[in-house]
């Protein structure tokens, strides 16, 4: 929230830090995976962030856009992003190659409260590009496995070819400390061995949920929130333990430009991670 006091002038918050694409490859037809390292090694290692936060990425000449960080702070140095080719900046980004330079500033926004989530069971529900921010918290939980109770992943996509991190998650399925359920709306391959149906059809698979002891996390296309939140409520998960991360158009990332304003808050400062309480109290949120 903006204070009315003028703080001491810090560095220019609008100036991106040069960064290099270390690795990029397609995850699906229109989504690429990017590994990026801030060029200045000291700054690269000093870039500390929380799961759920985002960064503004620059492609010079095309502009700047906000992207969720898909990597986990438990693996410092490299930042990972999962980006759909959709607008001016992403189209230009997809034309870049490994070792090309981009700009990065951030991290911005609120993260998932992993301290409060300690010792609790975690249900992560991702749909479509919602995998981008939630992969961060999923990997964080797995890297700090002894700090959490059950870790459950429910992941939905339209078709098998559109499921993000499919290989990574099929591999994770082999772990006995992760309950991983995948589903697609429709299987056009004839070779899909996981679930079929929208992501909420996976909820009946959950057994023995101890709601008071559970955090429910969701991110996906706008339509998905309402239905998944209903499922969390049906499970009696407390409203402050139902968390989601939201998308908004953003330009500055620092609470000035007004694009991401919802009610009296700015998604870039007070979000993108919100709880179900926020949904009740702030219209226009979902």
């Amino acid at each position: 929230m903006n204070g009315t006091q003028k703080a001491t002038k810090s560095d220019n918050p609008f100036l991106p830090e040069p960064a290099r694409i270390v690795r990029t490859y397609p995850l699906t037809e229109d989504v690429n995976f990017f590994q990026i390292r801030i060029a200045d090694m000291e700054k690269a290692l000093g870039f500390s962030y929380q799961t759920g936060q985002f960064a503004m990425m620059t492609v010079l000449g095309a502009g700047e856009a906000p992207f969720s960080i898909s990597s986990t702070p438990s693996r410092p140095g490299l930042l990972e992003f999962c980006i759909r080719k959709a607008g001016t900046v992403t189209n230009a980004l997809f034309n870049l190659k490994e070792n090309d330079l981009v700009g990065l500033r951030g991290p911005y926004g609120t993260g998932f409260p992993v301290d409060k989530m300690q010792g609790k069971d975690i249900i992560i529900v991702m749909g479509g590009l919602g995998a981008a921010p939630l992969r961060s918290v999923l990997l964080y939980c797995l890297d700090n496995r002894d700090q959490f109770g059950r870790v459950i992943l429910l992941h939905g996509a339209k078709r098998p070819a559109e499921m993000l991190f499919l290989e990574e998650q099929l591999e994770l399925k082999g772990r006995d400390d992760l309950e991983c359920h995948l589903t697609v709306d429709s299987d056009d391959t004839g070779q899909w061995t996981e679930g079929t149906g929208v992501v909420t059809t996976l909820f009946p698979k959950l057994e023995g949920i101890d709601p008071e002891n559970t955090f429910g996390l969701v991110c996906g296309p706008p339509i998905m929130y309402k239905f998944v939140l209903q499922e969390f409520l049906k499970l009696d998960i407390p409203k402050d333990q139902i968390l989601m991360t939201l998308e908004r158009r953003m330009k500055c990332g620092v609470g000035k430009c007004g694009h991401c304003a919802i009610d009296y808050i700015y998604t870039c400062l007070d979000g993108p991670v919100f709880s179900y309480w926020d949904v009740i109290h702030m219209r226009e949120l979902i």
Partner: protein
Amino acid sequence: MDKILAKKSLTQWLKKLDGYDIYAPFPQDDTWNYDLVTDPAKVSLDYLNTAQAPKKIIFPQREVFLEFARTEDGAPQMTETLPDPAPFIVLGVRPCDAKALTQHDMVFAGEYTDPYYWARRDKSVLVGLGCATPPSPNCFCPTVDGSPHSKQGLDILLTDMGANYYVEALTKKGEKLLGAAKTLFKPPTPKDKQTKEKVVKDAAKKIQRQIKNLAEVPPKLKGMFESELWDQEAMSCLRCGICTYLCPTCHCFDISDEVKNAGAVQGERVRTWDTCQFPDFTMHSSGHNPRSDKASRLRQRIFHKFQYFVENHKTYQCTGCGRCISLCPVGIDIIEVLNKVIDHA
């Protein structure tokens, strides 16, 4: 510090202000607009109000954030372009427009300070001109906690007393400007003070328009998010955005890259004013738009000014200048909208 300045001495005073750039209103076509003073003799404060608020001097409609260049085989270079202006005076600022700048100060401070804004703001000296007669038939500053002679945000306030200005230096910066031409400023007589008080009092009575009781609006709005009022009021909106572009308090902006040479990628990253009244203001690259209809955008404008901003900064984000009413091509009238909110069941 109170003084009297003869109107005919204004030019002499301005000539003494060495080391400052001076911005003053000048007639351009059929409106008045702020411009840099090149000849102090041409400055006249005989105007109603400028078409655009002086916010554009401190927060320009387009400004360069950084310059960039990428050679064919080299690394891209980014060069920060922070402004470094000489100290400057903005002359004849109407009190509503000065108060609006104090609200910009709130927005551009906070957790992240905006270095581009403050580079100019810190160098500014605002010399206000009280409104002896309302500059517009749509002025309504008293009902938004202002007044035609409000001192808020000003360094000096001039009150028009016919042949003279009653000059009040309100800050150290303001006093310094009077110090530059000491002999031109006479101490006010008791009669001058009386005359000034009368001008101030009479001015407030001349305001023709008012919001019934603005204090009722913020709590009332809370229950009116789903009201049909927004659909009705937005029906005629053309989405032109002039209400926000002319607003002295609106601060929303866009950041984009302007390319001069595509081959080697050379250009500028610029900040430009933007408005919540444009459909693409909130549109995601997926095409999803949380505020896809004009009713929700008009509602956003009203809620932001009269509820959200009040919640965050304890003041209405509207200073009653009336520009949005006078210049809306379809006659959307913010006073009428707010009065309807107050009358709403």
